[in-house]
């Protein structure tokens, strides 16, 4: 072997020069495909020539390889890559990136490439499980459904409609979310519906609503190919939105002008690729954003005509608390501000002052401010959990919008703020369908009588069915569940026993008060452990469905393989349970296929004419998704700008039509810096920040069952700063004990690994159900969005 090897290398060396040339030139894909086309014609002629040799009873080479390929959006993150799913003999055998999709242009990430395996974990649920004598036992589906319906009915009869609840997910399809919403608000008549997107996107929503009056980004992923400067506000995009990060890196490769700026608390893979890194103290992002605004305003570098014609100034209640249990929250109001007042409020955020709070040098803040201010630089701000999981999440969203509004760098190609999402349909389902306690489809709100009437009318239900008052946001819902006020809950496609902050508090309460818990899922998780009934779910391409990604793109996929055993889609369960509760008339669709199209098309009626117009189901079957508003069959790339958004009238230039009462202007908010509820002290001297790694999706219940991914990242760890580790005499791989006021956990140390936290901060990923970091986190949240802050609490660090 070795000998031959040498020979071959000799042969190859003779081609070295030519090869080198060829390797260095980037292949022209289109040409390549054309050549393949020609070659294909030759292939068709092949069998004719060799026909006499054909053995008809044998499979041909091509047949044997005949994998049927069909598109589906990735099951995992909010990027919404399109994957080609290869199916043979009723099973997924391969995955490929979809080069027809403009989202990912043929690329996927490690999670996406292993989509196929998540269906085939050996411990997948095939049957319904019912808890009998303390144990979950396999039971007929009919028995499980009857039990669920009767327990819900009993609870409603005895304790009212608000004693039952549904907790869903940003991984719900549009159909799942819409059927759950219709069942709860239109059937049972309660606003007890929430979704885990509350834990990841709520601040983004309230940020959009308070500034623009309408949810979701104005820009799209095309900005990533066009922009000159990209600012990551606490977003490790290289790991959390890898395909989009590669788009930026591709832009940088072609255009040397491109600069990346990372604002972060740890040196991540994103920082490694960045040109400027701002290491800041947790929570001081509020001060940095104000300092940038101050630089722009006080140096008179703001866009006068844009500010004059398209913005409106406001200020709101300050010292709004942290939503802690048992602490009364102040009423939050707002009032009109003037430019002068706003300018005065910025006065204190001098470079020197902010340098002191944030630990970021004045020069760096100034440089970043000049990027934002320079009219010749196209700039995109990107963020995700860093800004959203924040006790001032709404405020920091507002503050970044302020900068873009002051400079008028918004709604234009390569210019604009871009709020990224974590889950595949946090936007499409939770935010657009409105599966939150206050929500109704397409941006409507239960508090608004017209919205309720419109919805009741479209659903053909009695007026007054939908309660006018929102009931409980996620944290409040689980507080009620643990306190025994909610008696029965259905949890679908999510894993709250891993993701809730201060998890053990909730678990103990649930074990004490024993509410009836139904879980729809595919694998055993800590949440199915507390379930009374487990309904086996059909996942991803085992059913037809739709997702909506971060850039307003709605994508559809067809069913490609059969789900195991008795498994069904969540939407099917919602409909079946609805029928058993007497709401069958709300769901006239019979087969799963009819349900997928029927639910979508009915929901689509809500979206028409309100700026969220989604494309017809049949159209989406042919497209790689379309970005709403889709008007006259055309998608919208940049909202709020004339010529690009069909909702902006001629002559308006820009129109933030979500704020009709403010004359279609966007709001520039006065939002101060305020300290977080728990800061390191002598007893708990370290910051604890939690987050994600590229390999695992959410709580790892799917990705950990993929061999290649599990072996790459088998368990959680704690990242320590090198100097801190040295002081504590901790070496790489040593056991480290973390203790917060709520719990403690022992994990292996990672020092100088893939990321390096700044001094005084430790980082732990949350995917590992056996090393549950959420036993330590605090359930403090943004009082406006009710989204918890998983990024900041204080801990003690010891050798374990």
């Amino acid at each position, binding site marked *: 072997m070795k000998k031959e090897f040498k020979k071959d290398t000799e042969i190859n060396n003779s081609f070295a020069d030519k090869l080198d040339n060829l390797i260095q030139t980037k292949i022209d*894909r289109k040409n390549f495909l054309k050549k393949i086309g020609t070659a294909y014609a030759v292939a068709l002629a092949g*069998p004719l020539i060799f026909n006499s040799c054909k*053995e008809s009873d044998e499979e*041909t080479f091509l047949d044997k390889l005949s994998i049927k*390929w069909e598109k589906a959006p990735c099951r995992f993150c909010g990027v919404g890559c399109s994957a080609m799913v290869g199916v043979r003999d009723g099973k997924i055998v391969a995955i490929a*990136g979809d080069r027809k999709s403009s989202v990912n242009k043929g690329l996927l990430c490690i999670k996406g490439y292993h989509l196929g395996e998540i269906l085939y*974990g050996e411990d997948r649920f095939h049957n319904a499980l019912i808890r009998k004598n303390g144990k979950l036992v396999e039971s007929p589906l009919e028995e499980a459904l009857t039990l669920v319906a009767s327990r819900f009915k009993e609870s409603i009869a005895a304790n009212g409609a608000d004693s039952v609840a549904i907790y869903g997910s940003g991984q719900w399809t549009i159909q799942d979310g819409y059927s759950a919403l219709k069942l709860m608000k239109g059937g049972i008549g309660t606003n007890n519906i929430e979704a885990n997107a509350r834990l990841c996107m709520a601040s983004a929503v309230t940020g959009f609503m308070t500034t623009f009056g309408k949810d979701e980004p104005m820009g799209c992923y095309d900005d990533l190919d066009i922009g000159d400067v990209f600012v990551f506000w606490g977003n490790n995009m290289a790991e959390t939105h890898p395909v989009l990060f590669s788009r930026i*890196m591709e832009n940088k490769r072609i255009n040397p002008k491109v600069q990346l700026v990372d604002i972060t608390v740890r040196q991540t*893979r994103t920082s*490694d690729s960045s040109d400027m890194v701002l290491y800041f103290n947790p929570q001081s992002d509020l001060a940095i954003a104000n300092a940038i605004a101050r630089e722009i305003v006080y140096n008179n570098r703001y866009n006068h005509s844009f500010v004059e014609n398209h913005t409106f100034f406001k200020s709101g209640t300050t010292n709004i608390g942290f939503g802690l249990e048992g602490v009364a929250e102040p009423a939050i109001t707002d009032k009109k501000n003037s430019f002068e007042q706003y300018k005065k409020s910025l006065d204190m955020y001098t470079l020197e002052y902010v340098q002191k709070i944030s630990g970021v040098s004045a020069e760096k803040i100034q440089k970043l401010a000049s990027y934002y201010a320079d009219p010749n630089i196209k700039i995109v701000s990107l963020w995700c959990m860093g800004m959203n999981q924040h006790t001032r999440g709404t405020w920091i969203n507002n503050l970044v919008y302020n900068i873009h509004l002051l400079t008028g760098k918004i709604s234009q190609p390569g210019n604009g703020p871009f709020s990224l999402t974590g889950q595949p349909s946090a936007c499409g389902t939770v935010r657009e369908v409105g599966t939150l306690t206050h929500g109704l489809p397409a941006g409507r709100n239960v508090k608004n009588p017209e919205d309720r009437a419109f919805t009741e009318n479209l659903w053909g239900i009695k007026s007054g069915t939908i309660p006018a008052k929102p009931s409980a946001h996620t944290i409040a819902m689980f507080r009620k569940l643990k306190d025994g006020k909610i008696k029965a809950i259905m949890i679908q496609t999510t894993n709250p026993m891993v993701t809730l902050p201060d998890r053990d508090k909730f678990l103990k309460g649930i074990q004490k008060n024993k509410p009836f818990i139904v879980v729809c899922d595919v694998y055993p998780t800590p949440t199915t452990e507390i379930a009374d009934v487990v309904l086996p779910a059909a996942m991803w391409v085992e059913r037809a469905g739709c997702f909506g990604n971060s850039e307003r793109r709605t994508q559809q996929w067809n069913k490609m393989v059969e789900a195991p055993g008795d498994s069904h889609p969540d939407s099917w369960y919602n409909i079946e349970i609805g029928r058993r509760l007497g709401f069958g008339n709300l769901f006239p669709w019979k087969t799963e296929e009819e349900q997928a199209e029927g639910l979508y098309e009915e929901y689509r009626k809500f979206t028409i004419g309100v700026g969220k117009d989604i494309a017809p189901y049949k159209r989406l079957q042919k497209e790689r998704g379309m970005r709403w508003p889709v008007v006259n069959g055309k998608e919208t790339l940049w909202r709020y700008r004339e010529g690009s958004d069909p909702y902006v009238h001629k002559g308006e230039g820009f129109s933030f039509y979500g704020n009709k009462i403010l004359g279609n202007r966007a709001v520039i908010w006065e939002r101060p810096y305020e300290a977080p509820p728990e800061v390191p002290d002598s007893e708990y001297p370290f910051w604890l920040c939690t987050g994600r790694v590229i390999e695992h999706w959410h709580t790892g219940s799917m990705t950990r069952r993929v061999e290649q991914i599990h072996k790459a990242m088998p368990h959680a760890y704690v990242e320590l700063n090198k100097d801190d580790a040295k002081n504590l005499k901790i070496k790489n791989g040593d056991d480290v004990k973390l203790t917060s006021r709520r719990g403690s956990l022992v994990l292996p140390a990672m020092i100088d690994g893939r990321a390096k936290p700044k001094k005084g901060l430790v980082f732990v990923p949350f995917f590992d159900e056996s090393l549950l970091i959420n036993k330590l986190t605090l359930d403090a949240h943004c009082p406006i969005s009710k989204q918890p802050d998983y990024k900041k609490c204080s801990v003690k660090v010891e050798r374990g």
Partner: protein
Amino acid sequence: MLKLLKKIIFKTIFKTILFFVVFLLSFHCGEKNERADFASKRLKLRAYEGAPPVIPHTILKSGTHYCLSCHTKGIVFEKDAEVWSKKNMVAKITPHPEWVNCFQCHVPQQDTGLFHKNKFKTFHLAHVKKNIKSGEEPAPPPMPHQVENREKCIICHLSKTADPSIVPKHGMRDGCEMCHLPPESLDIYLGDGE
């Protein structure tokens, strides 16, 4: 009876001859086992044919851009074998040096057990070979894999880091895709129907 026997003998001889013909026509390179070995070695590093390979070595340095220092031009470790645990280790030339966020798709593997077993099954390149029947597969052989991100055939098949079992005996010729087609079913997503 005799007729049947004759038919069987004839068929066997016919098949044997054809086997060699196909063998010679289809695989101008290396021995049968070598190729099969290579195919199974390949699949050990991948979840399925077409998946990005895992990283078969430990990462010497953390940080994203170190990978390309070896994998841009490729290294064949022969003399420096003691640096590496295995002899003849090759740092393959990446077929897509333009993508620099390497860990987006490629991850190193730790020596841990499984979290839970998985029943996912894929096809194997060696099977492809077995299933090539006489005559149906006129030489030259089609590409037995997808070409996404691997459009530059020569990098894997002809460069200094190419595995000898997949180096064509006809050596360097331009335009591989003029004679070797990608498999039909994969073409569905490859082609734009032009």
